[in-house]
């Protein structure tokens, strides 16, 4: 899956594909940290420190 993406979907020579891969990874991680995980944590009990009133 990832090999196919790297070899067939990403354009350009090897060095460009490596840079694109890193950029994509950074964007995905940032999106997870800023959007997905904060949303997900609403449904997770881990950050719940209060007494249940």
């Amino acid at each position, binding site marked *: *899956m*990832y090999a196919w993406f790297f070899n067939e979907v990403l354009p350009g020579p090897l060095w460009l594909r490596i840079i694109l891969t890193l950029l994509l990874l950074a964007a995905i*991680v940032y999106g*997870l*940290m800023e959007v997905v*995980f904060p949303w*997900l*944590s*609403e449904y997770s*009990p*881990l*950050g*719940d*420190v*209060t*007494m*249940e*009133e």
Partner: protein
Amino acid sequence: MTLSPPRHAASPVPPSPPAGKKKPRRSVGSKVLGGFGEILITLGVLGLLFVVWELWWTGIEAESDRQDSLNEFYANAPEGFPEISPGGEDDEEEGTDSGPTPADFEVCYTLDDGTEIGCAPHMRSQTGPEQIMGTVYAPRLGDTWAAPIRHGTTTNQIDRGGVGHYVHTEFPDEPGNFALAGHRNTNASMLGNQDDLQTGDAIYVVSYDGIYVYEVAERHVVTPQSTEVLASLPGEPGAEAETGVLTFTTCHPMFSNRERLIHHAEIVDFVPIGGQAPDELAHHEYISQLFYTGGEA
């Protein structure tokens, strides 16, 4: 150079694959299994990233929010707030260090030993969603440990690098329970080291009303449903309190949500604005704006 079979090999080399550069095609089953494996690895990495986010990333924003909140709290004295002469640098230049000049204050109740506890009109007025009621200092938790207090214990308050006041509990200026919640492992972990507190340690609640001084009296671990720790008289819901208590609640054990770690501290003193600041607080940059830090007069 060509590779020849080892001399001791009994059988001739099996015919090598055709010299064409084509890679051998993977079977469909191998592709499916490989893709499934990649998905599993991806899920594992996502799980790890979530842990990183929860324990570390949430702390970055919360910590900067905490600093901003402290700065804002001390930069914005309420309207009509008296000019404080802290007896700091200005007075020393003139050689007329006048010592503490406690402001007059309204007494809300009196402790058994006669100590007068001042009212907290400023703290009571700072209960909006963006407002800081005061700041709590616990020297045992660090020289620079200072937690802004927000009114409320939802994520809007306690995820922002400070502690939250349980809205149904009392204020420091009345007999009862001033209960605060803070994070143990996430969002800057304000109460991450709460278990370091020891009996007798001082906890200071500072607002534009003065300093409420508490001493740690009791530690225990309870289930999250044990709301009696928030009662006016902790442990005895419905009973009427005669003195003030500060309660810290946080997660317990570390990295878990199973129980709650509770510390109760009893009120022992009150310092009005302009009064003598406790030595333990004198090094905090903002304390000298509101209190006398020139040493015992």
